């Protein structure tokens, strides 16, 4: 049986609030937790497969060009080397998220420095790694633009309304500022890995991927196979953050090798290869213009951004995504331009768009509040638009004002205006800052099968992944709430394309989409159970393994009569959000210390308040927000991809020199989850939370730096040198330091 819903209308029934089991939203531990902490959760490269060969990708030090020949014999005589794979089906780039088709082929056409072009396969990893360094090749190279400022740009997106220039000229107060952000890496802790097996025309690949139904299509298309011939398994994924949305080079290479050799082949990228070949978040060059009347009411809003990508890629970091609706201002100019340059593929890194687009607006808002002489929270509250300022569509639900107010209270916000450099502790200036947060809401088609087993326990199955997001926990909780079961009586199986296709993990779609599929499946099961009892589905209560109705009670095993009962839920996004603006919102508060000498900045505490629809598991949702806040710190202070100006190669291609935050960078973090129901967002009234926590928070840190030391820094990350230079230029002449 299948229950299908294309959601064309908001669902205000709030079914999960009336079911009564009490597990939905509860802060339950992850069911797979004990496996992860004991090292028994198995990741892609870790399956013990007899006779498995080891493959290592070979990359070329060419920015743009073509591999003309590969001399296999240069390595085939080396100890243990079995084969060199340089098939035309090798992919040089990863697929973009939800592409569903092969990425750019052939790999031998080189578009960025360090592109993988071949695979060396050997008996052992050490043999393969050494041989990969020795593979002789001939190539042709040509000049290539590598600097986004040096090329003609393409317009990707624009919104024009009214006359922003005029509004700026007429404004009582205005801000016009250019802010840059540098490239980011996902830097998931598990390097990209694949273990491929080819048996009788069937390909099975253990891989580390986020969106299996798309990945299966991408891989099949890359290899020239039918989708039915391909099975992908990713029950555990050691972090993705966008870098595993699309099928990446090692998956295709391992598959080709396994198909050619008829033996299992494992390919794990080196950390340097992950940095150099998978995906980057584009650097951005942004101009923000704000025009306001004397009371701080916005009359004009401008946000322009330049981002980059390789030729042929459709993705452009959607910097303006939330700027479209976050703040009012009748005169609007939003414009996104794309520069085609030869750095590795730009794609989705956690919260594409908002992760770099909100913080810049939030810095500009801070500057405007200062000019108006107003508390920055008040300025924001005053400029929350009634409806989408360009489209005129109402908001499905929005907790922005509540997040700002409740977050401020929890944080202990001290009202402004106040002059910076008000507090010093020894060498350290102390200050605080605020920022709004927003992340657009997406859902994606998803299927899940739920089986009530004869013993009254349930099995939830979908090819959905848990990349650390808490999918195992929340899908079990949706099912438990709907079927009246305690979580221990529910098994969740994920990450296998033999199971019904879920949404995949990306764009924060997973919880709302797959949660809805499980919800629908359980609705179907409830209806079947009700039918057996000759009662209406809404007259049936399921709790603690018992079915209860007016006048009766039966334990589930008894009701099931020794037979399993199964239903597949099929959720499809529909028209429910068509005439609405649907987004998650939040507010960020940060306290920083800035060293008066060196500009070193340390975050001392942060508070984040978030409204994202129904909370499905308060513990895993909080953890997602903690992760987001941690990313805010890296985004604000430490993370930056450094590209060589001569050949465009990524210089800091490892975890020693690309600085993701360490434990000591992260202080006490406070998270407020504001309960909300969004009837249009999904049948379970939930929105996404996986990315919201990093959409704006770096701006709160930037604003806190200003409040602390009086320096406005207009380039992220705000490394000691940049803060130091801004302090020097902002220093009153009377001060020595």
């Amino acid at each position, binding site marked *: 049986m299948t229950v299908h819903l294309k959601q064309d209308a908001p669902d205000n029934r709030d079914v999960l609030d009336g079911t009564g089991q009490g597990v939905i939203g509860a802060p339950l531990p992850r069911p797979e937790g004990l496996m992860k902490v004991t090292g028994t959760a198995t990741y892609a490269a870790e399956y013990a497969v007899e006779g498995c060969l080891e493959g290592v990708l070979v990359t070329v030090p060419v920015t743009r060009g073509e591999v003309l020949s590969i001399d296999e014999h240069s390595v085939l005589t080396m100890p243990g080397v079995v084969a060199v794979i340089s098939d035309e089906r090798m992919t040089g780039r990863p697929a973009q998220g939800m592409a569903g088709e092969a990425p750019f082929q052939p790999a031998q056409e080189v578009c960025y420095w*360090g592109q993988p072009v071949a695979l060396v396969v050997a008996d052992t990893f050490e043999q393969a790694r050494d041989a990969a360094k020795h593979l002789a090749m001939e190539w042709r190279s040509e000049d290539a633009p590598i600097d986004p400022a040096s090329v003609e740009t393409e317009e990707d997106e624009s919104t024009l309304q009214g006359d922003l220039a005029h509004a700026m000229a007429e404004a009582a107060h205005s801000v016009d500022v250019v802010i840059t952000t540098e490239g980011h890496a996902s830097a998931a802790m598990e390097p990209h890995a694949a273990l491929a097996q080819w048996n009788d025309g069937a390909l099975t690949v253990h891989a580390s991927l986020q969106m299996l139904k798309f990945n299966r299509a991408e891989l099949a298309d890359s290899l020239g196979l039918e989708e039915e011939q391909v099975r992908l398994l990713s029950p555990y994924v050691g972090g993705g953050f966008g870098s595993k949305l699309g099928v990446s080079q090692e998956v295709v290479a391992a598959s080709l090798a396994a198909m050619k050799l008829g033996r299992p082949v494992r390919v794990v990228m080196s950390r340097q290869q992950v940095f150099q070949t998978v995906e980057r978040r584009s650097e951005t060059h942004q101009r923000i213009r704000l025009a306001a009347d004397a009371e701080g009411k916005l009359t004009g809003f401008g946000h322009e951004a330049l981002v980059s990508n390789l030729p042929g890629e459709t993705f452009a970091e959607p910097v303006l995504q939330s700027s479209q609706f976050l703040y009012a201002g009748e005169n609007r100019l939003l414009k996104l331009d794309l520069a085609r340059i030869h750095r590795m593929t730009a794609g989705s890194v956690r919260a594409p768009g908002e992760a770099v687009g909100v913080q810049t607006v939030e810095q500009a808002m801070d500057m405007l509040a200062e000019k108006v002489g107003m508390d920055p929270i008040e300025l924001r509250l005053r400029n929350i638009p009634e409806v989408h300022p360009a489209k005129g569509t109402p908001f499905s639900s929005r907790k922005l004002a509540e997040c700002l107010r409740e977050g401020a209270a929890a944080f202990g916000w001290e009202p402004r205006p106040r002059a910076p450099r008000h507090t010093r502790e020894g060498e350290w200036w102390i200050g605080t800052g605020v920022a709004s947060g927003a992340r657009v809401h997406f859902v994606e088609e998803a299927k899940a099968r739920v089986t009530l087993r004869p013993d009254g326990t349930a099995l939830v199955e979908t090819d959905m992944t848990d990349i650390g997001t808490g999918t195992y926990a929340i899908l079990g909780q949706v099912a438990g709430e709907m079927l009246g079961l305690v979580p221990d009586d529910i098994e969740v199986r994920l990450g296998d394309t033999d199971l019904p296709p879920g949404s995949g993990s990306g764009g924060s779609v997973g919880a709302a989409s797959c949660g809805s599929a499980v919800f629908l499946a359980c609705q179907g099961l409830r209806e079947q159970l009700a039918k057996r009892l000759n009662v209406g589905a809404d007259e049936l209560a399921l709790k603690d393994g018992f079915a209860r109705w007016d006048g009766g009670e039966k334990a589930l095993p008894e009701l099931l009569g020794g037979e399993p009962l199964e239903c597949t839920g099929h959720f499809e996004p529909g028209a429910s959000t068509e005439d609405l603006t649907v987004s998650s919102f939040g507010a960020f508060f940060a306290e920083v210390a800035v060293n008066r*000498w*060196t500009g070193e900045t340390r975050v001392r505490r942060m508070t984040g308040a978030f409204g994202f629809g129904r909370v499905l598991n308060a513990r895993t949702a909080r953890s997602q927000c903690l992760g987001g806040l941690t990313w805010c710190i890296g985004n604000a202070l430490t993370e930056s991809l450094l590209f060589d100006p001569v050949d465009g190669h990524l210089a800091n291609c490892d975890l020693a020199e690309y600085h993701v935050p360490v*434990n*000591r960078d992260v202080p006490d973090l406070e998270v407020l989850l504001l309960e909300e129901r969004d009837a249009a967002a999904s049948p379970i009234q939930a929105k996404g939370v996986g990315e919201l926590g990093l959409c704006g928070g770096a701006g709160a840190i930037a604003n806190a730096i200003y409040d602390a030391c009086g320096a406005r820094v207009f380039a992220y990350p705000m490394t000691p040198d940049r803060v130091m230079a801004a302090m020097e230029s902002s220093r009153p002449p009377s001060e*020595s330091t």
Partner: protein
Amino acid sequence: MRPFDYQRAERLEHAAQLTGEPDTLALAGGTNLVDLMKLQVETPQTLVDIGRLSLGTIAEDGEGLRIGALATNTATAVHPRVLADYPVLARAILAGATQQLRNKATTGGNLCQRTRCYYFTNIDQPCNKREPGSGCGAIKGIARIHAVLGTSPQCIATYPGDMAVAMAALDASVEIASERRSRTVPVRNFHRLPGDTPEKDNVLEPGEIITAVTLPAPVGGVQLYRKVRERSSYAFALCSVAAVVDLEEGRFTRADLAFGGLAHKPWHDPRIADLLIGSEPSLALFDKAADLLLEGAESYGENDFKIPLARRTLAAVLCEATGVEP
């Protein structure tokens, strides 16, 4: 990693004999060498494991302290004598790397730690240090972490360590043995400037093995190690200052300073002590010290900031050491 012949040295003489052969490297803690071998930056044909030699002892040496070459960074940093008498050394070690790395890294290995220059560690990029004559990628490239003092047109790499900076401030000595002779080199002279031979990081010759570092008799005073870095931990220094400072009657009687992150070696300029000793601490004086330090400094765009950063870090350390209010 290239295949290599693995040999374990059982005695020091044996180790010295083996490492005197061409394409042979000594392996101690491995935290730097194994890393570089995986990248094929280092490609020894023979690897001599000296890790089991009896060189790990930390012992009294007259009034001073003798730290065996194989004493781990941890062993040194937690040693009661180091904590009591040479706190700048403990501080420097603890500011470096992580506990896991310090548990393996050794005194000798840390002195020989190679640069973190992005071009040195990427064998598909030019680097005169790794491959003499291939050019320097950093000078026109990403030079953010690079040197501003004592650079040459051939190389602008830095020595990346922390421990040796404190040892330079303390005027420690490196004991070196080979088959034929033993010698002692001040830490301040152990590392060299790149000049035309950037492939040579230090004065160690083939067949020579570091056996110990000796610290002179304790001098007391205020001892500080200040490290400026992009993360609050687990990051190399953009600039660091080791300071051993003493004052009597309001005037400097000791001002032993050494700097990390600025040069191909821990930087020590005796003129700074000459300037400071006998003078009353003041911001103006610290500025003059910085003038001396940075005389002849040359930067490469990306690392221009290191010049003001060094000036400010020096002032910060001297203010902290002397109580001068900025």
